């Protein structure tokens, strides 16, 4: 699974300039080396959390599908799900 260049472009355009939102890659790679290789190869610009740091956290509860995208608020409430609805929402956050 490779990150579409369009997603990197969308991140640069819609997320980076907006202090109200950040995207975090929840890595489902089985090992950190694979995640690092992917990040290097595709120059992934967003922060990431490795699988071994996720398993004990509540981040496992939002999705078990790969790939998937969820927008949550600071309290952990799910606000939107799927790239289209997530991006539609963040574009309203100015």
């Amino acid at each position, binding site marked *: *699974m490779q990150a579409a260049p369009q997603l990197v472009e969308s991140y640069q355009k819609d997320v980076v300039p907006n202090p109200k939102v950040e995207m*975090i890659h929840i890595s489902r790679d089985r090992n950190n080396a*694979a995640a690092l290789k992917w990040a290097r190869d595709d120059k992934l610009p967003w*922060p990431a959390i490795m699988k071994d740091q996720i398993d004990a956290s509540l*981040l496992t509860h939002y999705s078990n599908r790969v790939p998937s*995208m969820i927008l949550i608020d*600071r309290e952990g409430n799910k606000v939107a799900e799927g790239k289209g609805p997530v991006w539609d929402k963040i574009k309203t956050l100015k």
Partner: protein
Amino acid sequence: MAETASRTRMKDYRAHERLPSQQEIELEKLPSLHENPLGSMKLSIKKCLIVATALGLGLLPARTWTSADGTKTFEGKLQSYDAAEGKVSVTVRNGRILTFSADKLSEADRTFLTEEAARRGGTTQNRAAMEEFSLTDIGKAFTKMQILEGDAFTPHEFESVPEYFILYYSASW
């Protein structure tokens, strides 16, 4: 690129911190990169205390500083900027901390200092919110973030706490 695309990480710093080995130096006696090595400088040194308004500016990358008249340059990392006193401390290549008056620097350097002070002031205002957030379940989950810097992952922190988080579950396979 990660360095440019992602918001800057907040580095830990303490305002009002007294810096070690403070020295005051006349900028005219700083070496040009193209002239003397730092070790050969004749320094006019006196002890200097950082006043309570000092701003510690953390681990910024080295930059080339230019004298007010544009004739001399040197490289160093900004260590602190005391806006009230107009004093700048810069760590140079041999690890020595040089402290001097900001008006010895070029206009571009003074603008940089003003912007850094403003940026870090804003960060200070966010500190309480960030500490509070770090105690929440979501905040705890984000304490292990990393970001690609060069060829390796390095720890990453929010500069300020976003209101929303996009969780992108994905993998290389």
